[in-house]
């Protein structure tokens, strides 16, 4: 079968007797000449499947053949034709770019004579020519991934496996990685790209969609998107509060899924239902429903039976804060220098009560530094950060008791049970006695943690970890929430549920500062600050940034396109006048 590079037949894999199967009864074929996306949330089985393909794991049952080679019996031959780039590619951080390449060339038996050519080609290909002597540890996230890719390509593989190459990579570098991989594909080569970002699925010619170890879709992504053709709409021209409109829309039985997109709301209608009445949504007289192109994610949610509802029990249980437009979070000339390097340079912004403010920017641009200064984790070299009017450096305890913080990795105590985590965080924030007990019980109730109470937090499914982390950060009813990439790696359903809670909290007067790489998440923000080279180079509502970057080539830019254009414009301007 020349047309199939990889055949999977009834493949099952389990890590242990007492654990659920990591992959169950999977059958699929992968063709050469295209990029096949391996798509699914964290814990879906993507990495397990990749490791099975490389013969690093052997199937519990079923069969896996790569170009006719069985992974069980032909592992060593198989390794000759495979290029594998694991999530954390094994770059030696203390070796330079060229030393890393030499090492992998040695491992792959590429002789010295071939080497010069191969290196020249790969360095040109990845744009790393001028960084040959730099230590791998000093490269940015995107450059590390490119070097990883180069190392995996030292011998041109027939099957290239890329395990989440775009994690932690900003949109600009992500595009370059895609361009490079697409250039690689030819009649002979098969490429598998695994990702948790559903928008990346749309760039693949073929997709394997995994969920909890099961294959729920395989084929061209458009085939899945077709499911929801004619059912995707944007509510445009909303004059009222768009978050409340979304909450109301999600209560309508015609609507199965909805998200905020800047000033508009994107909804997917239930099959066989008509359109919801705009008057019920109370979206203002200008509001209208405009059909939009379906996305892979819309279809994915559709296969799962629709998204969660629009009301947040969490928000309902919170005391609402005064309704005014006071400035709650204020950054004033925040500057942070590490030695001679300026990580953040004179960053200023204000966030008013009930606003969601997003910090966006490429890796290493100063986004995290700014965020850390705002929540008091870093002391600014100059400038001040104020939360509810309190200087974080002068009254840290008092200011911190008013803020809630949720980190990227859901920093929970893994060895503690969910209840013990809740007890601890409520205790640390000064909740005592009956009030503490009630609050913890309410959180367990709201987030449906009861079935998981005996587990340790580290063994919870990722969606529950995320819920628990949110619960831990809001029990003291903070006035301000700091969210650091709060939904990375989480499945789209949990992400929607999360944003329902955040939207609800914002309606209660909570102020939110969020950093993110997800453009979807950025769309939920009222305003965005784009951080680049330590400076805030643009800020404003998402729609305003899109309008600002409109051009004849891109008449209706997405937020990601706007983001990239803004970075390019800034670079161009500063190269002219250094």
């Amino acid at each position: 079968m020349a047309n199939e590079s990889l055949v999977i037949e009834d493949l099952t894999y389990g890590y242990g007797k007492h654990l659920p199967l990591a992959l169950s009864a999977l059958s699929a074929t992968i063709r050469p000449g295209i990029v096949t996306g391996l798509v699914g949330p964290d814990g879906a089985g993507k990495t397990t499947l990749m490791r099975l393909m490389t013969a690093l794991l052997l199937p519990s049952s079923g069969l896996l053949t790569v170009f006719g080679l069985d992974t069980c019996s032909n592992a060593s031959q198989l390794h000759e034709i495979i290029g594998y780039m694991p999530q954390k590619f094994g770059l030696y951080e203390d070796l330079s770019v060229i030393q890393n390449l030499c090492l992998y060339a040695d491992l792959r038996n590429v002789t010295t004579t071939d080497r010069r050519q191969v290196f020249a080609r790969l360095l040109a290909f990845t744009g790393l020519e001028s960084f040959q002597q730099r230590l791998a540890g000093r490269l940015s996230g995107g450059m590390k991934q490119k070097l990883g890719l180069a190392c995996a390509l030292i011998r041109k593989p027939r099957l290239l496996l890329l395990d989440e190459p775009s994690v932690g990579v900003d949109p600009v570098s992500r595009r370059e990685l895609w361009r490079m991989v697409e250039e690689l594909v030819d009649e002979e080569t098969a490429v598998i790209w695994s990702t948790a970002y559903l928008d990346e699925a749309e760039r693949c010619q073929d997709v394997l969609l995994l969920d909890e170890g099961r294959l729920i879709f395989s084929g061209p992504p458009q085939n899945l998107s077709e499911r929801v053709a004619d059912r995707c709409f944007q509510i445009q021209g909303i004059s009222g509060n768009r978050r409340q409109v979304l909450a109301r829309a999600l209560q309508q039985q015609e609507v199965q899924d909805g998200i905020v997109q800047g000033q508009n709301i994107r909804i997917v209608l239930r099959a066989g239902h008509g359109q919801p009445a705009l008057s019920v949504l109370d979206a203002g007289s200008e509001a209208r429903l405009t059909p939009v192109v379906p996305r892979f994610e819309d279809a994915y949610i559709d296969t799962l039976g629709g998204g969660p509802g629009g009301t947040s029990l969490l928000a309902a249980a919170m005391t609402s804060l005064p309704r005014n437009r006071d400035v709650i979070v204020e950054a004033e000339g925040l500057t942070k220098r590490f030695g001679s390097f300026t990580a953040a340079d004179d960053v200023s912004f204000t966030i008013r009560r009930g606003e969601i403010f997003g910090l966006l920017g490429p890796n290493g641009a100063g986004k995290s530094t700014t965020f850390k200064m705002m929540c008091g984790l870093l002391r600014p070299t100059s400038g001040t950060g104020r939360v509810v009017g309190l200087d974080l450096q002068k009254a840290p305890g008092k200011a911190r008791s008013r803020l809630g913080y949720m980190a990227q990795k859901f920093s929970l105590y893994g060895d503690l049970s969910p209840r013990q985590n809740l007890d601890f965080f409520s205790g640390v924030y000064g909740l005592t006695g009956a009030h503490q007990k009630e609050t913890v019980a309410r959180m367990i109730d709201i987030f449906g943690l009861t079935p998981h109470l005996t587990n340790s937090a580290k063994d919870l499914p990722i969606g529950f970890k995320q819920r628990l982390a949110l619960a831990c950060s809001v029990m003291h009813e903070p006035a301000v929430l700091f969210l650091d990439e709060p939904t990375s790696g989480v499945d789209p359903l949990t992400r929607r549920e999360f944003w329902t809670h955040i939207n609800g909290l914002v309606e209660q007067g909570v102020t939110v500062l969020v950093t993110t790489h997800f453009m979807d998440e950025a769309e939920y923000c009222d305003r965005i600050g784009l951080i680049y080279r330590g400076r805030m180079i643009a800020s404003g509502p998402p729609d305003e940034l899109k309008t600002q970057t409109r051009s004849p080539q891109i008449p209706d830019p997405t937020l990601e396109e706007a983001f990239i254009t803004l970075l390019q414009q800034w670079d161009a301007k500063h190269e002219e006048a250094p």
Partner: protein
Amino acid sequence: MFHRIRALIIKELLALLRDKKGRMVLIVPPLMQLFMFSFAATQEVKNQTLAILNLDRGQPALTLEQDFTAATTFSRVIHLQRSEEIPAVINEQQAIAVLWIPPNFSRDLEHGQTAQASFILDGRKTNAAQIIQGYAGRIIDRYRTRLADKGQQSGINIVARNWFNPNLDFRWFTVPSLVCILTTVIGLIVTGLSVAREREMGTFEQLLVSPLHPLEILVGKALPALLIAMLEGSLIVVVGVLLLRVPFNGSLPLLFGSMAVFLLAIIGVGLFVSSLSMTQQQAVLGVFMFLVPATILSGFASPIENMPHWLQTISYANPLRYFMTIVRGIFLKDVPVAVVWAQTWPMAIIACVTLSMATWLFKKRME
């Protein structure tokens, strides 16, 4: 504030003890080490050869010679004739020690003067020599008691240390030392890993953005470690006394009082290491960088007196040195409060220094 620290302590104890593996790591290896050291690594000295150069024909000298010859430790005795033979006997390792009784030994005793005798040990075999020295001390002690019984007022002077081991059982020496070393290990590991583990898991930032004051975090880390190390210390004492039959002659309150002060000094070191390390791996390395020299400079393996002067000076900064003295004293003879206090206040000063340094570094690293 009390409430917040309580939440921290509960969390810390749960994190250490809730996990079955975590509990095992805290309990099994120390007990294993205790048994290993007291059985396998026994340094009991038997079947040794003693050389005797007795230049005195008097009865007291003869009795002393017989006392040594009769000791079970020495299975072979070489009689020397001249003092010139001594270097050869030691150099060629024919005997581990030489008892040298000078000609005027008996006469001095009878005249009520201090009689001099020398006990020369093979210094290359530090451990064995030290133990033999202890045995010799015991023999001389008995000899002296007998003299006193006969109404002799005069003393004899032979270098003798470690005479608190009347049954000549090496385990009596090892177990108290292990109480010190193992509590040190527990105290260091628990605190050393605590901050580093939170840094690795990302929970540390979560603590830092909470209203907890850095000092509260440190107290919340120090107290559970103190509690756990004290419990482990007690466990080792109990096992040592009940299973390994080491006598316990001193006062428990004194032992625990001094142990608490000692552990505070150790915890200060552990927290310092932990604040410095970004990963648990670094923390473990850091802990060992302290642990190994501290153990060697404590007098556990080789006597501090045998070390060069500058090392002896350094050893005054080692809390383990003082605690070792206290524990051996409390175990084997009922040392008075004054003696314990004399060893405790230096540890208290060290504790103040290490804890302040940990606090300083902890605050500094937060930025």
